[in-house]
């Protein structure tokens, strides 16, 4: 037995290693959008039940993250950016990640069903299944449209938050879903244009590598064009209003201008100024989503004082 294998066997992961399995940064976005979905709903939720519901959604998202890390450990080990993650670096055993993912999924779904309602729990269960099985196990390695489909998993949280409060699905929650769903591809592809990746080494079909960077620029513009009516349309539902619509029009104009600039450029121009436009659009995309959901919250607060809405 060599020294290295002896070290691996005696290493025991700390709590921090297990926490890193749950993708804390993804969880923070999930918590924010789910909270907005819950707060803008017309029915009030008891604060403690609301807290437990958001906790369950966050834990469910973390569990699907752990399942994703368990399944993707082989490709994570082959890419520089991801080689330091808990499983490929040997700090957490694959079986542990699988166990944590399954246990936390069950915990989150059952507790959400008991604390709120079965529809919310079903949506959470479907989200975990969608991310871990449909996206991670199947589509991620099969199609360059993986980002598009995978975006659906990230789009469910506000819909779950809404279901926690109302017990149902409605046009408002579907449009909140559609907003994140349509936003994900241009957001991620803008990143793919300026980050040097080694997805090719890991055998993952990314659009930039399968169809080229020009096609990726076209895709960004098309998806941004499709995103605009969804984002502005949400302003004319019961959770929208003048504040939201004004924010949506401004942010969509900004994002669309960026997508157009990306589409107009070629790689030579992009290399020349070190991807200035692409990096700029990626940053705008972050503000874009944040501004839309904050504007929805503002409308909800204004409605409390009889001011929001149309």
């Amino acid at each position, binding site marked *: 037995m060599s020294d290295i294998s002896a070290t691996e066997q*005696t290493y*025991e*992961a700390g*709590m921090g290693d297990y926490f890193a399995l749950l993708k804390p940064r993804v969880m923070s976005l999930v918590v924010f959008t789910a909270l907005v979905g819950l707060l803008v709903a017309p029915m009030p939720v*008891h604060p*403690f039940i609301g807290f*437990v519901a958001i906790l369950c959604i966050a834990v469910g998202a973390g569990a699907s993250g752990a399942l994703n890390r368990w399944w993707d450990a082989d490709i994570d080990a082959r890419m520089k950016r991801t080689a330091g993650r808990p499983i490929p670096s040997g700090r957490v055993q694959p079986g542990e990640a699988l166990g944590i993912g399954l246990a936390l999924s069950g915990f989150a779904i059952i507790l959400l069903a*008991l604390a709120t309602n079965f529809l919310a729990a079903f949506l959470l269960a479907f989200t975990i299944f969608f991310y871990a099985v449909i996206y991670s196990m199947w589509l991620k390695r099969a199609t360059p449209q993986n980002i598009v489909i995978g975006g659906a998993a990230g789009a469910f949280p506000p819909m779950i938050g809404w279901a926690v409060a109302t017990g149902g699905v409605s046009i408002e929650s579907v449009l909140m879903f559609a907003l994140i769903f349509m936003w994900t591809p241009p957001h991620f592809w803008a990143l793919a244009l300026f980050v040097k990746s080694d997805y090719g080494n890991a055998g993952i079909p990314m659009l930039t590598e399968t169809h080229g960077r020009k096609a990726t620029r076209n895709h960004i513009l098309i998806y941004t064009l499709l995103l605009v009516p969804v984002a502005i349309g949400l302003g004319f539902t019961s959770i929208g209003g003048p504040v939201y619509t004004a924010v949506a029009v401004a942010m969509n104009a900004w994002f669309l201008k960026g997508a157009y600039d990306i589409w107009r450029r070629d790689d030579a121009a992009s290399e020349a100024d070190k991807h200035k436009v692409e990096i700029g659009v990626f940053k705008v995309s972050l503000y874009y989503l944040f501004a839309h959901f904050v504007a929805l919250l503002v409308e909800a607060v204004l409605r409390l004082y009889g001011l929001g809405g149309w």
Partner: protein
Amino acid sequence: MALQVEHEIHARRKGRNFGVFALLIGFIAIVFGLTVVKVLQLGEAGEFERFDHVARPQIVPEEGAGE
């Protein structure tokens, strides 16, 4: 050498044990809090008996009244 390796493992294990302990306490707090909130939301305390999942004639006044 061997003792030092043992010691390092035990320190890490201790951290994990405290982590699990904190999670269990948190879980108990959540279940207890949910119970309190759900019961208080019922309004009338008599309603709570329906959670027994057992037939309780005394909480159905019509049936008991004629006898």
